[in-house]
């Protein structure tokens, strides 16, 4: 987008519904369990430190990306689909 003349105004906000994943990225500590995660997945910690992204928590009930990863009932599907399509 910078090439097109529309540079980003700030860091990209990355919403995640997993609080412990956010904590792992923000804290940058290796725990007993996280040492089995491949090293290249930790690049996200570097991005966070360089200011390219900001991690934020979003509740699982209002996370529209769920609609793209699993089949949902009509209440949630209607809510997320309309959200993604800009209806409200």
């Amino acid at each position, binding site marked *: 987008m910078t090439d*097109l003349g529309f540079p980003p105004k700030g860091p990209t906000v990355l919403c995640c519904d997993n609080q412990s994943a956010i904590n792992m990225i923000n804290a940058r500590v290796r725990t007993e369990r996280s040492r089995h995660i491949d090293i290249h997945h930790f690049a996200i910690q570097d991005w966070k430190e360089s200011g390219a992204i900001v991690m934020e928590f979003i509740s699982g009930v209002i996370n529209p990306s769920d609609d793209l990863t*699993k089949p949902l009932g009509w209440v949630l599907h209607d*809510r997320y689909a309309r*959200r993604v*399509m800009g209806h409200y």
Partner: protein
Amino acid sequence: MLRQVDDFAVACPNEDLAKCLYAQIGKALQLPSEDTPPFKCLNLIKDFNGLDVAQHSDAIKLSCEKYMDRVLTTHGWSKPSPPVPSKPSVPLPVDAVTSLYVHQGPPENTAEHATLVAKYGFAYRTLLGELLYACVTCWPDIGYATITLSKFSTCPHDHHFAMLKKVAKCLRATKDWGIIYRRSHTDTSLPPSNFICSTMDAELPDFPTVDTQEPVAFLMPYMPIICATADLLQAMPSYYVAAPSPTDAKHSPSPLPAPLKQNFLPLLPPRSLLDTCEPS
């Protein structure tokens, strides 16, 4: 020599600017033997490649209602059968993941497969392709359903046929849905829309709208410029469409007029790049 044979859309803030751009392109396309430029402006965009574009003073809506109508009429499903369900339909039922993966149907090009096609009245891959187009243009919500069902296209079971038909039925129910981009500045030359702006669920937080954050650009690989970001929309609220007739045109760089320079230069590659790829 360049040959320009296709329609294209231009996004820009007002009609005068669009006309100015057309005049420039038309002049560049015109051969010495031609009296008029082989290039026509078709005014404000209404549809483009099977996509309906509804333009309002406060929003732009991209939908493919006409395309879906055509698909449904071809299959003879344009009218819902009498018992209309009370609840809105979903592309895939909640328990679909377990039920879809346990069945395996007969391979394609076998007699059993042909029986299934005859029973349902549509070819699995044909309908899947039609739904995939709808998915990448303006129904991101059927993304999961179509991608999952496409995994079974070599050996579709009776169950997969039924599920695929349900996706089409779901689209029939939500045929008028589309992707809505809100304008950050109202364009008074266009009629106002009746899209509801308020949130339906009070508990929803102030989720990024298309005005401030990147919209669903990743879902629309065919429209990289039109839908790239909302920032683009902010700068260029209206679309105009032009259709040049098939012609040979000599590429002749000419100085851009001031309004074009101001609005379009940031979008163009650097001058040096243009010079190096000039056709011989």
